[in-house]
């Protein structure tokens, strides 16, 4: 099951005016979002985004949306510019917690959990 996010500190990178008007950068963002869209588990993403304070994603991705450049750029922003700086990822089934510190997620398992 997807890990639950508890966010203590979030950082949102706002695109600089230079990069948001740079067509090459826009194309990169659209290409990335388009590329990764098929791999995304949308309900999980919605849940995670909500925990990070982002409520702007649509409940479902229609084919029209998937081809819309504005949507793709917004998706890129949510995926790549919103960072969990400090917080916790928690497994809803076992309660196991994985800390996030200074942007780095630590998913190391204990000795007893290893094979």
């Amino acid at each position: 099951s997807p890990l639950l996010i508890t966010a203590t500190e979030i950082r949102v990178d706002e695109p600089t005016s230079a990069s948001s008007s740079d067509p090459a950068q826009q194309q990169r963002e659209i290409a990335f979002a388009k590329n990764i869209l098929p791999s995304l588990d949308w309900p999980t993403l919605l849940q995670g985004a909500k925990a990070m304070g982002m409520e702007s994603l649509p409940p479902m991705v229609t084919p029209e949306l998937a081809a819309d450049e504005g949507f793709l750029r917004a998706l890129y922003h949510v995926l790549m510019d919103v960072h969990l700086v400090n917080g916790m990822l928690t497994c809803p089934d076992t309660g196991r917690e994985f800390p996030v510190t200074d942007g780095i997620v630590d998913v190391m398992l204990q000795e007893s959990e290893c094979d």
Partner: protein
Amino acid sequence: MSNANSSESYLLLVEFVHKHLDFHDAELQSILDMHGIVVGTDCHFLPLPNSDTDTTADGDRGSFQNHSTTSKSKSNSNKRPFRILSFAWKSIGSKYAVCDEDPDSDAASPTRNGGSNDTVNLITALARCTLVRSVMELWGAGPSIDDCATSIRMGSSLRRHREGRHLRRRNIGNTKQNDSTPIKPYPERTWKITIHTLGSTYTRQEQNEMRSKFSFLQFPGPVQMKHPDDEYLFIREVELDAMGGAVYPRHCKGDDGKTKKELIPENDARPPLACYFGRVLGNGTLGRNWRGSNRLFRYSLKKRTYLGPTSMDSELSLIMTNLAQVRKGSFAFDPFVGTGSILLAAALRGARAFGTDIDLRVLRGRSSTENIVSNFKQYDLPPPELVRSDNSIYQRHFRKHLPLFDAIVTDPPYGIRAGARKSGSRRGDGEARPIAEEFRYDHVAQTRPYAVSDVMADLLNVAAMTLVMGGRLTYVIPSMLDFDAEEDLPRHDCLRVVSVCYQPLQTELGRRTVTMEKVKDYDERRREEYLEGTWVNGPQSAEKVANIRERLMEAARKKPGYEEKAAWRKQKRKETKEAKKRAKLEGVGRVAVDSECRHANDDDGRD
């Protein structure tokens, strides 16, 4: 070269730099393939003049499996730094463009699923090759300057250039083929002829004699030495040794190592290996020295704030991103990210980066201003995603069956520098102490040594699991000369070997950069089978890699740049130690004296 300039073909001469010899073809083919250019179909490799010494003239198929013999270093010194590419003439100006475009433009940027009808700009494509020094439109070639001139006369290049159809700059964003910016008319174009003599120097007069052989071309426009419209290039190729110097130098060196201008007559009388004449491509945007124009020095390790003993040299990192076909907007992964130097190269290619490592200290870096992320910030790149995890149990950390990555580029730990680790108690009895609840997430899981055979088996399996179909894994593996790529390379049923490139470090020691491509879907039920099948010859192949730790350390110490890195680290440790000592001995009240001492230290010549 009797078929040199048949009216059907358009020829390019690619000149390589004289390093990483074994990588030239692999990188070139990888880039061509990335742009949808299939060697053997869309273009062909033609043999160079006097090519009985060229071991790779038959390389249309690029049979890289052959590049694994123990005499690799020997055959490399015979490898010539040129490639002739032949395209169908009718495809130039339509399917392929050779006019100058903004090199950063995305107009010709390749996408994995691009069954695009977009024109591919050959200059933009080839400019991405780290090892390409220059590219020219080949007008003539032969085993002597006269043969070269004759082959120009017999060919169509001059006529084509006068017509200039293929020179027209395509209007970006315009789909109509005929709509293009007109270029400067032929009679007005300024020009010059550059003479490039490999490994030898010629006087100005001698060079002008060479130029005069091409005066029959009768270019109408004025000669202009700086930034002419057309730069023509005459190349005189001779045999080169491993260091890039002439095997039969024209002049002998004086005792002081400097060249004394004394001719060695028997060397001077030797005929060249080949003579080439053509027009430099990318002249407007790249100049003749493409590598200088790529400004690779910007990314050199020297300038980076966060370095470690395992930082991959930036050139090899960039080459790896080419071998792995890292594209703009793609997702690149390094499971052993270390200081992030390879991921940085991937980000420079426009990919978003994801890195994991088992060592939290390395991930966090030395401070908030000296870490992986600060390196990325230094080059104005979006930060990588970093996760501390254990690659040997990747499937326990992350969602299964998720082909996510377009490229995996990595330098795995072989127990050689970083001391490969994986989770689990050092106590071999399998008993682990349970940790009290309140301490759980602060506890640093113990790690134990990670056998090389397992490192590779896990890496290939993770690659098979997480790469998209057609995605590539590029990794580095140290090896002795007794390493046979056919038998000793790790294998996986879902991956095929694309290329193996050898880089000598010492006489018997080197490293191989291996590229594999995912060709089959991963089947979770076959997991054990995949892992068992990694080593064709059994784990003793892996041991060949594991037992060279000390010798690699030796080789690293001899490498340029190592001294600097080691000295810098030593200096830093000294400074930290002294600062700690001072803070201990002197209390708060003596801060003023402390800073005086520090200033005094600054004056003793240390910069």
